[in-house]
């Protein structure tokens, strides 16, 4: 008897023409929640770091690629600063050592004697 009353009440409500009509409810995703601001910040940071990483990777690749040199470009004349390895004369047999000593001395000798900077126009 009690059960009949319950059903009856339900139908009564639905049959009431003055009651607001209920539109079929739209399905909503159960996980959709407003994102946490901390999570948002983390995502932005991750994107930012990824972009920087990609840019740096591209630049490092560009740097590694050798630039082609023009065919007619002359190579720099090696200067005297780049001298062959200086081999100590102690490793040379004695019968040749004097000659090498003399040659080494000559090779190391600078004979610069800078001329005086004078004014040839005095008295003009």
């Amino acid at each position, binding site marked *: 008897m009690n059960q009949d009353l319950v059903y009856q009440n339900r139908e009564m409500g639905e049959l009431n023409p003055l009651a607001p009509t209920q539109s079929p409810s739209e399905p909503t995703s159960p996980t959709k929640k407003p994102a946490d601001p901390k999570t948002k910040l983390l995502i932005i940071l991750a994107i930012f770091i990824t972009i920087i990483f990609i840019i740096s990777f591209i630049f490092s690749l560009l740097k590694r690629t050798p630039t082609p040199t023009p065919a007619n470009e002359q190579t720099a004349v090696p200067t005297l600063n780049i001298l062959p390895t200086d*081999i100590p004369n102690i490793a040379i*047999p004695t019968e*040749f050592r004097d000659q090498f000593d003399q040659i080494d001395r*000559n*090779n190391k000798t600078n004979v610069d004697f800078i001329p*005086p900077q004078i004014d040839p126009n005095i008295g003009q």
Partner: protein
Amino acid sequence: MWFLILLFLLAKPIKADDSSSLFTKYQQDYLYQYDLYQQSYADYTGKKQIFAKYGTITTQNEAFLAAKQAIIARNQVLKTYLVALRVMLNDYKTSDFTQTENIQTELTNWESWLDQQRAIVTAINNTKDLQTWVKVFQSKYIQIQRSIYTSLIQNEVNLRGLTLNQTQSLFQNIQNNPHIKPDSQQWIQSYSDKSNLASSAINNALLLTKKNQPTDRFLNFYPNAQTNLDQSRKYLTEITSDLKLIIIKFYQP
């Protein structure tokens, strides 16, 4: 008496100054004269400015006398420099005796000319004559500069030429030495290539001193010659290192 005899026997003969130490002395003299010239020149420029500002007869006279003094000091600097340069050429003269001797004679002539100018400048007593003399000096100075730079190049050409000869002599000694293993022959071949390059660089430097120069100005050929001489020095250093390596590798006592 015996003590005196002993002293006489033990005494070493006084060695004559070699050219290097003689050069050092003349170089010191040149540097001293250069200091004096700088003082005279500062005095001259100061008095010239005072004359330009006031234009009086007194300031004109003072500027004129200061100019003469500065000219004499400048000529003395040039002379002492030329003397030191001439002495410096003795160091490696044997490499090209005749050419070096000719250059030394040329330098001596300029020294004498500069000496003569001292008396001439001292005797000048008016601005017009002084200005005429300045023009003569300017034309001579073009030739003096040429002599100076030719001397500097010749001196280094002599040194590098001498070193090249020494490497050639050493190379022959190595080649003919019975203790050097025959395997070394293929290494020895590279010597002649570098030797030719060194020789060519030395000759190129020398050729620059013989180029015709304009009469109205001095074109400095020294930097180009120096580049060639630096090249020759580089080749000579490489040759020396190569020969050392050959000996170390192939010498069998």
